[in-house]
């Protein structure tokens, strides 16, 4: 893709917008449509676009495959960890109300953290799939 000037310029313009929109979807899921799954997929799309235009080699410099796989596992662990934290603070598994003194604030914190875990896992798994499919 060395010579596709238009594609390279347009991709460079689009990438920050895609990543910003993914973050908006991630953290605005409490108030509008969105959440970890959609945000993770959109975030991964940004990385895959970069990989398609600038080559998989450059993408693996930006996002090393080992690191991406680690993030995928960390997301699931974060989700489960929030559940365990609920047990440790005297509630039930995945009971967010006990995370903070105020139950509503606890729910907000719990949902924010588990959505972050979902987003991390989904984005990393999608990027991992792209790596697996494009490896010669």
């Amino acid at each position, binding site marked *: 893709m060395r010579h596709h000037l238009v594609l390279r310029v347009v991709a460079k313009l689009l990438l920050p917008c895609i990543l910003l929109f993914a973050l908006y979807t991630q953290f605005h899921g409490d108030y509008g*449509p969105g959440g970890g799954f959609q945000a993770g997929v959109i975030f991964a799309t940004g990385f895959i676009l970069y990989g398609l235009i600038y080559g998989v080699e450059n993408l693996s410099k930006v996002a090393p*495959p080992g690191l991406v*796989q680690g993030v995928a596992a960390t997301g699931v662990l974060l989700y489960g*960890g929030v*559940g365990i934290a609920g047990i440790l603070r005297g509630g039930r598994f995945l009971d967010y109300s006990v995370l903070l003194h105020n139950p509503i604030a606890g729910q907000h914190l719990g949902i924010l953290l588990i959505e972050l875990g979902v987003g991390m896992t989904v984005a990393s*798994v999608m990027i991992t799939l792209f790596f697996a499919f494009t490896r010669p």
Partner: protein
Amino acid sequence: MDVLLLGFMVVTAIAVVRLRQLFAVVMLTGLFSLLSAGVFVAMDAVDVAFTEAAVGAGISTLLMLGCLALTTSSEKSVRHRTVPALLAITLTGACLVYGTLDLPDFGSPAAPAYNHVAPRYIHDSPREVGLPNIVTSVLASYRGYDTLGEVTVVFTAGVAVLLLLGGGLRRSEGDGDS
């Protein structure tokens, strides 16, 4: 509006069946997903529509293109047409249509889905969870255990693809149980 969208979907589906160039087929399946996202918006299910547009029209199209790069981009032509296959498909389709006859009407307030736990979610979630988007409350809090299972499934699928196609790393991944 619904008829227009569904009509476009039927046309797209027929084109997908007829075409032999897989690149065009992948593009058309993306279009099909986008149209179904439009149908979901028309049904006021914006969260589902968002997911369909991002996953169906976005990333799966990209991953299918990746598959095409790995394999080949034109379908092998099949000359013989089998009657039993046509019969099986027609029978299955007829059964599915017969099954939909028992479903409650779209948006009917008497539907079981609206009378089980939904009133409690709508009534109590502002007090219990306090999020403006009740869909997020249900997915992340009331059904947090389900969503944990879904994330684990996504993670396990990623690990399975790595095991099958080889991710380049020889270190084995940890398992997804938490």
